[in-house]
């Protein structure tokens, strides 16, 4: 197995392969399923257990269908197509976001609704917060020149990142897995799913850069900590961080003044000093406004986070020169 992306890495860490996942159970074995039931009217959530007979290549959705047909006919779960196209059946299985129609059952499974969205009943979540965020981003194309007629000049090279984003089925698995979205209103981060949907047109060379800038300004994209959780769970195998969020960050840095201030500052500090100097970072991001919060600065100093002497007096080292060279090379690429 080659470790080319976060998804493979996650599978590798779990000693997991698609072949293993599909051969763990034999036909007729019992699959033990715990489903989180939630009923606002009846007052709360509880887990309910079911024994589901395994059948060939059973998916999580097949297990849910079996339960609804044979054991709990009022089980509420959303699905439409059963073949990884509609993107409405995502749930969490044993703590990991999966598309129910796509993922093989595990011998013992706990099934829960997606996180970071309100649960309406059992496994059905309210998609409205995502829909609202997406609509605010205006995920469409605006042209600076009239459409030149079919087929218009366009190459796959120009579309290579947008094309990856176009594989998105809007299942919201990544939205559930994102720890920054999990922080709630603490940040203004739009989240991975809205960003992938936006990336479909914002990374499209046909789009008006001014329009892209307007959309990106509303994304809070620099709150993304590049933890790759979104990539790990994406059932469409979209390299969400490397091929969508990072390229969008590059666009935001170039198109939206001030949006990437922190990233630019970090970049400059590393280029100059060959390492992250928190004192220099605070100074560059906040300037002398930092002095307005002296108790905080003092706390940072006492805990060894910042060291004004090092920040102001440290000389350039050979390491810093090398780092600067590497970063400049990265900027040119």
């Amino acid at each position, binding site marked *: 197995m080659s470790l080319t992306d976060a998804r493979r890495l996650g599978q590798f860490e779990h000693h997991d392969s698609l072949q293993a996942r599909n051969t763990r159970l034999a036909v007729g074995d019992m699959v033990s399923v715990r489903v989180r039931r939630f009923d606002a009217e009846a007052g709360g959530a509880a887990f309910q257990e079911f024994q589901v007979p395994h*059948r060939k290549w059973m998916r999580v959705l097949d297990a849910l269908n079996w339960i609804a*047909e044979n054991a709990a006919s*009022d089980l509420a779960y959303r699905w439409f*197509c059963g073949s990884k196209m509609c993107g409405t059946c995502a749930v969490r299985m044993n703590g990991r976001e999966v598309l129910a129609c796509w993922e093989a059952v595990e011998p013992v499974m706990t099934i829960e609704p997606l996180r970071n969205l309100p649960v309406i009943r059992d496994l*059905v979540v309210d998609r409205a917060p995502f829909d609202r965020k997406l609509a605010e981003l205006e995920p469409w194309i605006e042209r600076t020149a009239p459409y030149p007629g*079919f087929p218009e000049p366009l*190459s796959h090279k120009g579309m290579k990142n947008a094309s990856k984003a176009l594989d998105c089925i809007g299942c919201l698995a990544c939205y559930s897995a994102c720890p920054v979205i999990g922080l709630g209103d603490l940040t203004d981060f739009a989240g991975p799913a809205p960003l992938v949907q936006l990336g479909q*047109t914002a990374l499209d060379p046909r789009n008006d850069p001014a329009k892209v800038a307007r959309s990106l300004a509303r994304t809070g994209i620099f709150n993304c900590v590049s933890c790759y959780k979104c990539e790990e769970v994406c059932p469409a195998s979209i390299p969400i961080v490397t091929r969508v969020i990072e390229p969008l960050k590059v666009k935001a840095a170039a198109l939206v003044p001030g949006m990437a201030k922190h990233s630019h500052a970090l970049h400059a500090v590393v280029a100059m000093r060959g390492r992250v100097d928190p004192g220099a970072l605070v100074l560059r991001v906040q300037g002398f406004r930092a002095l307005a919060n002296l108790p905080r600065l003092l706390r940072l100093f006492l805990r060894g986070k910042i060291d004004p002497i090092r920040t102001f007096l440290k000389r350039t080292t050979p390491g810093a020169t090398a780092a600067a060279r590497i970063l400049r090379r990265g900027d040119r690429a």
Partner: protein
Amino acid sequence: MKVISTDVAVIGGGAAGCYAALELNRRGINSVIVCKGLVGKSGASIFAGNLVLSGRALGNTEDNARNTAEFLIKYHNQFLIDQPWARRCGQWLENVYYPELEEAGLYLRRDDNGNVVTSPGKIRSVAANVQGNSGVPFMDLRRKQVIRAGIPRLEETVVTALLRKRDGSVGGVFGLNYITGEYVVVLARAVILATGYSDRLHTRSTGTREMSGDGIAMAWRLGATLVNLEMQWWHTNDIADPPSWQRMQVYPNPMLGSEKSARMVNSAGEEFFNQQQDDPLAYGPYTVQLKALTKQVHAGKARYDGGYFAGFDHCDAAEVDAYTTYGKSYRQLGLRFPEDLVETAVTAHYRQGGIDVDTHTMRSSVPGLYVAGGVGGHSNGLIGLATFDGKVVADGVAADLPQLALCELPEQQVDTERRRIEALRAVRPDGVSPAKVKEKIRAVMWEKAGVEKDAASLRSALGDIADMRLDLLPRMSVSRGSAAVNYEWLDAIDVVNMLDTCELIVQSSLERQESRGPFMRRDFPRQDNGRWLVANVMRRTENGFRFEQRPYDLSIFKPDFAVKDNLEVAW
């Protein structure tokens, strides 16, 4: 109960419904889309694998254009199609459809040199982003166009009845938001029905969960004339297991950027179908494929529910992966790709027939009720044809609208419908679960009105349907009485429509006394162009229904024989 007023109520959020609403919007006409699922995410449109090139688009030659028309009329519709409509449709696709989509941002797959990638062969196609998944970005774009235009959507809302104005014409709908449990009435000046044609009426069906023949059943209850309901299309190689993957297709179509396509192998390991070799003209060769399989079933080397295999073991993985999603299901099952074949089975797919329409205006036989897309009986579909319907219906409605008054709230109809729907939420001790009834209906259709049928099996199916009405419907019960997110209740509502639609399909199947394309009667194995090259029209009468035959305009193509064994006819 929520009451909304608008100019036009559009029922259905697939290719036809979305385009109708967008076209109305461009003409300054308000509409509301009522969708049983999520606009652009449910229904059959998301399954579009690729987009067939029509006319002279993208370097198509005159021969290509003619082949595409021949494929549509012959292989796709077995001549049961309005040929002048097909010609108008082809011209519109060439001149309006591709430019409209691309201007809106649809990415028709390019290579690194900027050429649009096409499949080679006599009929060419292109893909939106990737072959096998074109419907997803296509419908995602439609969803966003609808949002951008500010067209209101009522989603996860099932329309249960069409409402009539005082003059008897259709002017509104009654529905239920099954997530909130709230009833909704949309009052309009006209109603467009765009509920699709890929219903889950058989044990194995390609349609999405919510497709239960609602459009056919509701239109019939109001007296709409139907046509060719018996003409059921089948997918021949959908993956046999697991059950949720019953529409996961091993696409037989020519691959983009390759000369090869999938091959099919019987239980003895003998290849019995390879589209590029067996019938290069039959682009999307579903009927040719089905007939090849039927011969294998007759020879005992395959079953309709499995026992045969399909795959790409004669191709390089890189060749298949370049522009298609075809390897994804193999890999997800832990199979080796492309070395391994996968067991496949037949699945009920599109229905050629539907509600009878005037193809110039998309009017149905009921005033005020317009039809677009697969639920119409004028053609078997492709996403482009369904989109063209959206344009034609918008033209038709826009022309009629000045004469159409806004529907007033028909309180008695609303009250009657509300009682009917409420009654389906009854909790009865020892009741029958609606999901079980659905399963039973599908089993009857699969076994007795499946790929091959005869008068005896069809009559037996009618008997089963009558029994279910008498015995199961009154005992049907949900286990939880609450109104919100009650999928059992939705299932119960669906069951009524499924029984109605299935009965109409079986009656129509009895009426057509021949075999034609994918419609196979054991007792009438021959295709009979002398007697049956006609529309099988089903008209509602005061005490039931009657069938009529209506000939087709054969001005472009006509069959070159009168009577022939259907299995010996290529298409």
